[in-house]
């Protein structure tokens, strides 16, 4: 269980995260949704000690997270940020092996290698194992980072937009793997996700953010509602029940005339 108590972050004059208090249940998938710039990534960085908050505290199972030693924390929570850039000459397997650093401190044992192999096969990376990461496609690289995070084998796993760059098949696969980790190993998974239908289908709980604040948080069925989502995203959204899942349909039924005007203007200019 993670409790956030009045977390805020101020950049310049702007409160990009504004007095957020929310609880994250153990053994569940919790999705953070909300428009660009709502403060999701900033909040995630503060929960995982990558960024200092300006006020408030993060309680991990009742204890302030900043009081725990960093190396012990690394065995308890793992975070993968939204964008990861690396200029290093490092192979896929070497990078994934870093997930074991909190345990092995660089000296991998049998068990570490097993876990690394497992993470590699979860993410279907066997054929790339020995390639340098700068020789991979964007989606393949994203899977490497997810594998590294999974290899860290922590109770709490934070993933900021894990489906970045991934095709449909791998997106679904990863969400299924995350569900499996929750089901079989009682992991707690917190993701930031933009595809509202993935959030709807694969999460237990959803926290919706807007303008640095929590707009609503609760069981997914309490959040995936027409009025709520329309309010958060400021657009028309219809919700249909398909195969027992709440699916959001957010395409325009009519073509937008102003778009045609815009294109014409561009052509003329």
């Amino acid at each position, binding site marked *: 269980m993670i409790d956030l108590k009045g977390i805020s972050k101020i950049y310049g004059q702007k409160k990009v995260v504004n007095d957020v208090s929310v609880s994250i249940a153990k053994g569940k998938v919790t999705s953070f949704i909300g428009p660009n710039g709502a403060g999701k990534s900033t909040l995630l960085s503060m929960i995982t000690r990558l960024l200092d908050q300006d006020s408030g505290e993060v309680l991990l199972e009742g204890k302030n997270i900043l009081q725990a030693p960093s190396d012990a924390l690394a065995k308890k929570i793992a975070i993968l940020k939204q964008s990861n850039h690396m200029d*290093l000459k490092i*192979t896929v397997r070497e990078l994934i092996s870093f997930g074991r650093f909190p345990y092995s401190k660089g*000296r991998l044992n049998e068990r570490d290698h097993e876990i690394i192999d497992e993470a590699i096969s979860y993410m279907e990376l066997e054929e790339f194992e020995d390639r340098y990461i700068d020789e991979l496609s964007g989606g393949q690289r994203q899977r490497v980072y997810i594998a590294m995070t999974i290899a860290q084998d922590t109770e709490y796993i934070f993933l900021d937009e894990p489906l970045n760059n991934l095709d449909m098949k791998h997106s679904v696969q990863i969400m299924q793997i995350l569900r499996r980790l929750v089901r079989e190993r009682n992991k707690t998974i917190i993701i930031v996700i933009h595809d509202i239908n993935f959030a709807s289908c694969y999460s237990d709980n959803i926290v919706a953010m807007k303008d640095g604040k929590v707009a609503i948080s609760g069981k997914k069925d309490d959040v995936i509602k027409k009025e709520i989502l329309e309010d958060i995203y400021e657009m028309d959204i219809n919700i249909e029940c398909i195969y027992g899942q709440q699916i959001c349909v957010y395409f325009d039924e009519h073509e937008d005339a102003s778009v045609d005007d815009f294109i014409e203007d561009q052509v003329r200019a």
Partner: protein
Amino acid sequence: MHNGKNNRLLLILTIATLAIAGFYILYQLNFDILFYQLPSRVNRVVTMLIVGIAIAVSTVIFQTITKNRILTPSIMGLDSVYLFIQTIIVFIVGTSSPLLTNDFVNYLVSMLGLVVFTVLVFKYLFRLTGNHVFLLLLIGIILGTFFNSLSTFMQMLINPDDFLILQNSMFASFNAINDSLIWITGAIVLLMLIIVLRDFHSLDVIALGRDHAINLGINYDRKVSQLLLIIAVLVSVSTALVGPIMFLGLLVVNLAHEMFKTFKHRYLLLGSTLIAVITLLLGQMLTQYVFNQAVEISVIINLVGGVYFIILMLKESRR
């Protein structure tokens, strides 16, 4: 997969270093002055080993922290500060002062001045610039120019005889180095090396960047402060011992990256150290046997390193 190849490379470099060092010590040995010549050559080789370790290790760590391949502590203005310290000593107390004539006192003063400067610059600059490489480089060059100009200004004012004496300290030299200073520097460098090697795995993690490092349990800010202090000490003692060789670090660490193509510090630290020692030995032999002491070793190394620096800058800007 690449480890086997890299281990072999390390072995080759080690053998090459030993061979060149052996050659340097034994070449044209004159048996009449054996008892003078042999210890003096061995001393030089030991000094090159110490300087090689200090410069290579400090540059590797510095580049890992700043995540760049073109900045080194020397380029960040450290060499100019060393010159400035020497100049200001001559300017204020003159060439006959023990501050200049006594190797020991001069070493101590230079070292302390450099350590203080480095710690201040690193502590504040990193915070101010948010570790932005090109901003850091710019400030480094400005600081370097500033101290250089101050030195040049003072050099105009002192009398020409003093200037000649001062000129000796402007170029690194491995000739006539005080024995006890070699051992003191060696001990300090060895101590730093042990601290670094005891925990070289966390350097690999730091190379992944701040966020990954924290996520993997590194106490990042504390660790980086500690490493910066080690860098400051390493560069300072080596510069205080032989003088500045601005482009040595840049040259050898980049060569190590090209050769080993790895992020692993085991290879980068050892590889660049060996390359540094080889470079110094070759430079020294050129100075001694080809140029007959007419050209300083630091001039040769800076010429090669400087050209390499320009190539790197061009490559970097084209990306």
